[in-house]
């Protein structure tokens, strides 16, 4: 088993929580993993990414080679496209469609959607909208993770457990909200 995952988004959108969730689940499944993350300057509203590697064998590089990512999980549509050089031929792109516009030259959403249509395996969902409908607007990141969960080779229960571990300190309500979001993502039908 080997999964190379790229997490993408904008600083502050919660890709650290996605990474931590997959991380806890990976530890519970007794897998090797390496996760490289972004700290510092770029976290201030800039583009951020994290390389997440899972395997049942020892992993060497902290970075995923070009063309070897099995999946890109993005909480922002334009950011999803930034990492296409890493996506393997049969890889999946799972992305939020709600744009985060903090630059003057942000492209039109239509043009982004056109780019999505050129990719073989895409799941594009409006995670912000889904999270809002669940009255848990801060959990859009977990909706996206839920939508990606069938392709991770990790048992869904492990992800739920990981959310308990990660958010347990913040109270039962936050745990519930995040799990609801995760499930809604998993059950998403285009």
């Amino acid at each position, binding site marked *: 088993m080997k999964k190379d995952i790229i997490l993408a988004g904008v600083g502050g959108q919660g890709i650290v929580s996605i990474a931590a969730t997959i*991380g806890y689940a990976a*530890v519970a499944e007794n897998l090797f*993993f390496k996760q490289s*993350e972004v700290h510092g300057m770029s976290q*201030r509203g800039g583009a951020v990414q994290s390389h997440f590697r899972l395997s049942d064998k020892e992993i060497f*590089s*902290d970075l995923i080679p*070009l*063309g070897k990512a099995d999946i890109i999980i993005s909480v922002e549509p334009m950011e999803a496209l930034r990492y296409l*050089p890493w996506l393997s031929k049969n890889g999946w792109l799972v992305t939020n469609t709600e744009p985060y516009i903090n630059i003057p030259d942000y492209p039109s959403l239509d043009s982004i959607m056109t780019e999505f249509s050129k990719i073989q395996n895409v799941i594009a969902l409006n995670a912000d909208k889904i999270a809002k409908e669940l009255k848990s607007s801060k959990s859009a990141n977990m909706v996206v993770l839920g939508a990606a969960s069938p392709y991770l080779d990790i048992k869904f229960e492990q992800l739920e457990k990981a959310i308990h571990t990660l958010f347990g300190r913040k109270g039962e309500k936050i745990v519930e909200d995040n799990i609801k979001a995760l499930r809604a993502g998993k059950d998403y039908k285009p």
Partner: protein
Amino acid sequence: MMNLVLLGDEAIARGAIDAGLSGIYAYPGTPSTEITEYVQHSKEAKEGKVHYTWSANEKTAMESALGMSYAGKRAMCAMKHVGLNVAADVFMNSSITGVNGGFIVVSADDPSMHSSQNEQDSRYYGKFAFIPMLEPCNQQEAYDMMHYGFDFSEKFETPVLVRITTRLAHSRAGVTPKTKKEQNSVKVPDDLRRYVLIPANARKRYKILLEKQAGLETESENSVFNTYYDGKDKSLGIIVCGIAYNYLMENFENGIPYPVLKIGQYPLPRKKIEKIFNECNEILVLEDGYPFVEEMLNGFFGSEKKIRGRLDASLPRDGELNPDLVAKALNLNSSQGSAIPALVANRPPQLCDGCSHIDAYKALNEALKDYTPGRVLSDIGCYTLGALPPYETINSCVDMGASITMAKGAADAGLVPAVAVIGDSTFSHSGITGLLDCVNDKTPVTIFILDNGITAMTGGQFSPGHGKLEDICKGVGVEPEHIHVLNPLSRHHEENVKIIKQELEYNGVSVIIPRRICIVESRKMAKERKK
């Protein structure tokens, strides 16, 4: 069984604690900050009363650590690569005094400049100072090297430099810990003159340092961190340092056909290098950072053998390595996916909505409207983002503290008024001495200390001058009537502009302190209050 999941930085911190650390001294700086933060949050460190508060800058940090080592205990200081410039004086001299308790300096380099002004390679400092170095390739080695490093430091009475790069600092993986060691007790050095570097002693100590080198080399020769892996195909030999080892391994799932010398400890193991050099037709050097090893192999007149690396363009001369660049240097195929669509725009970092620096810059821009441009010398911190549109307020960012002193030089040259913009944490790091120079010369400068209460850029650490800024300025000799605290909010814009304009006209030193808590920090505080 791996039972800890740690960032490279955290593995270093945990390794040090488990190896009997008594104190860490540091000033924050990406990618080194999490080392100290781990100690600050560690239960074990608290129980062991390990010192962990932030220092004013890297020099004060390293000196304090050296002092703790003088008193017999194991001490560490951690910094980003440019921090080592600030602490270079004590670093260079600490190899001559030697150490008593184990003493480790961690310097985190930032190739590709993810969050830095340059990508200098700390290994040159180690060589410069005759200080042995350790360079881990992964989180486990980072952990293990702290145990090894402290023992080594005490055995040879030498500081040890641990060099990492961003990628390891900020990558997480499983780590197996070792049994925890007790801390040393207080014990001053046997020779009480050892640290007195008056020339007569210093000459003696320097000879001792030089004599020590052969032993350090033997230690490198036999180190588990310098391993020779034989290979059948001698057409190429690969010397690979630190994290570059991972990128090499990534490219050979089924084993490497060539001999490989993996380097994790310096000075370089000369015999092992000779072996791979003699056995193979060509040498490829893989190292993240400058071509430090490659240059040494080439020597001044080049080598009779072909040495490939960053200097012969087998690898790019600058920037961080990755598995794809290493594949290319080995003539292996890489499998790039589709290109980035042209519509993808850059998304640089920017000041947060509601950041106090925004209002300070708006007021300063307006106050400077009638002057010719190019007179705002600035510094390093979140406020450096004020160089970008829409503000474009500041004209420099060189090294911490340089705003005040560069503004002084510019004013001395006749660029009057000259303005300095510096953050509160940067001011206490190394702005105070420059302010003293200005006061002594009564230089016409207007100095902005942007006080958001914390060290924001690196994630909201304690700011060493917090609550003391006006007193510091007065103490240094700034006239009290030329010290102004502003409230940087749009509703105070007009009055703030008026005060700034007035001080720009003043023919002497003025200090303006726009003060409002960092917006990220204030949200954090509000959340904590709710809990």
